[in-house]
């Protein structure tokens, strides 16, 4: 067994909405498990709609949120046990975030390059000003920018694309093994979007960085990912190789999701109608399958019993359609793959 970079084991996150006693509980992330190999860098996508729990999952991995139960370990160390500042710095050096809105990533009242120099200095990567500048220059070069372009500039003097590149460059200064990119291109101009997406796959190839790509945009997810997890109301409903999941989806939700993605193809307009979700909170608190109300192939069991994740045709899928079949065949469940 190879060493694991990141292991997420049955992680649950419950939010209390409107006060601990009177409010309702909301399971934002429900029993999610997966791991990332440390030998083989990859781009792993978590895709889902608003409120699917993908951002909460990312925040937990970044240590910004504590899981209610379950554990997240990075290189064998439990992330929630980090207490000391040195340990935290050590962890942040390895795991760096890229945020959604490039115009919010940097303080609008401060110059952009200061963050790059701060990163170089605070992680004790460079002592003198010259050494820092060298590191910064290198990081900027790897994202296709030069120090001249960003030095002394305020965020609103740069374009969204430039800022997002700078944000990636900042994250790269510490030479992290894992980048967590939460919707990194949704606010970037259409004409620049692909250049940022390409950047991630280049980084994977050249710097052996694993990227956790969190998005609602299935088209770019397909374009760069190796594996994908489809999330629905806190559950990972389908998880596996990108081609398997996206070209021959098994879970009814994945199927509907893929059918709904507008394709930039003038011929392929939709014909049939679809059902829209009712109230979000209702779906979150549903006992059985979260997709029961909208599912075209819903069965009786789906209403009350939460389906188990089963391994089928090269991917994990959480649906009674497959787990029932599975039971009949009486095979054992693999924990992960």
């Amino acid at each position, binding site marked *: 067994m190879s060493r694991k970079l990141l292991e997420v084991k049955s992680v649950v996150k419950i939010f209390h909405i409107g006060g601990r006693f009177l409010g309702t509980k909301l399971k934002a992330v429900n029993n999610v498990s997966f791991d990332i190999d440390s030998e083989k860098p990859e781009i792993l996508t978590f895709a889902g709609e608003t409120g699917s729990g993908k951002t909460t999952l990312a925040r937990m991995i970044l240590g910004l949120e504590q899981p209610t139960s379950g554990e997240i370990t990075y290189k064998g160390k439990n992330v929630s046990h980090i207490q000391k500042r040195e340990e935290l*710095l050590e962890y942040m050096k390895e795991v*760096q975030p890229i945020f959604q809105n490039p115009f*919010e990533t940097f*303080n*609008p*009242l401060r110059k952009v390059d200061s*963050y790059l120099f701060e*990163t170089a200095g605070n992680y004790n990567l460079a002592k003198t000003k010259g050494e820092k500048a060298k590191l910064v220059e290198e990081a900027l070069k790897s994202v296709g920018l030069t120090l001249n372009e960003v030095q002394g500039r305020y965020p609103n003097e740069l374009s969204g694309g430039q800022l997002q590149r700078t944000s990636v460059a900042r994250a790269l200064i510490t030479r992290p093994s894992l980048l967590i990119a939460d919707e990194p291109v949704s606010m970037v101009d259409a004409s620049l979007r692909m250049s940022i997406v390409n950047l991630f796959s280049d980084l994977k190839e050249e710097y052996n960085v694993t990227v956790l790509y969190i998005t609602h945009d299935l088209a770019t997810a397909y374009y760069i990912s190796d594996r994908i997890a489809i999330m629905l109301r806190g559950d990972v409903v389908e998880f596996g190789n990108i081609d398997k999941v996206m070209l021959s989806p098994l879970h009814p939700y994945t199927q509907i999701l893929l059918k709904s993605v507008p394709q930039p193809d003038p011929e392929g307009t939709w014909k049939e109608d679809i059902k829209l979700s009712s109230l979000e909170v209702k779906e979150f608190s549903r006992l059985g399958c979260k997709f029961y109300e909208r599912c075209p192939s819903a069965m009786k069991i789906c209403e009350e019993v939460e389906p188990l994740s089963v391994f089928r045709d090269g991917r994990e899928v959480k649906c009674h359609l497959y787990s029932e079949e599975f039971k009949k065949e009486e095979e054992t469940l693999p924990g992960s793959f």
Partner: protein
Amino acid sequence: MFVILKDLLKRDKKFLFGFIVVCILVFLAILSIFSPYDPRSWSVVPKDRPPSFQYILGTNSMGQDIFWNTTHALKNSFVLGITTAVVATIIGTIVGLIAGYRGGTLDKVLMSINDSFIVLPSLPILVFLSFSLRGKMTMFVLGLTLSVFSWPWGGKQVRAQVLSLREREFTYTSVFSGMNMWKVVFREHLPFVIPWVIANFINTILWALGMEITLSVLGLTSLETPTIGTTIHWAMQYQAIFRGIWWWLLTPIILCVLLFVALYMLSVSISEFLDPRTRLQRIKMGG
């Protein structure tokens, strides 16, 4: 800094007015050094003289020169206002920044302290303190006492600001850039909070001056120290208005109004200038 000042003076009439008035008043306060009379001694000049060349603002019934006395009064009032504002603003801002940024238990503890100071009835306590400490109450001590009651307001405002700043993405960027709490709070958040801090600073000066006047008019401060408040107190004690010695009462009142209006103008203008939104516009324009 100098460029900004020049810019503000040139473009903003409110600032220009406030700045000039405050400068004149400060100049008057400085003049107190050259005062030929000890402000505490009585009967150094003829009594109840109206304004003339010899006594610019006239003299009062205690035989003091009102002009020179006023310079002392201004100096003392400035000392009081600035002491209060400096102490209150520093404590309030730091408490607000930390409580807002750290959140959790620390926030709860700091805010319950903050709230307990807010609910303390300041006037009765001040009246009691002044009454019992009379004489020992120098301007500086009074300033410190006043700041105890005024820091929580600023602290609460700053905290509210930081609470929303904390959730913005750039805060996370700075955390992941390896900055520690102090760096994040002072470099990232303080610039957004500064307009409030400055507005608060000036408001605290105004509040402290007002409080001093209230206490003095009630006769609860060391009355031999000339301040705007004590001047009014003595003028009323000697029934200056009824006896037609209008210059005695009018001088502190006009000064007081001028000072209040000028400080208010400065506060508005500086807040506007430092407001992140207008600052962003200036950055965009490259100026």
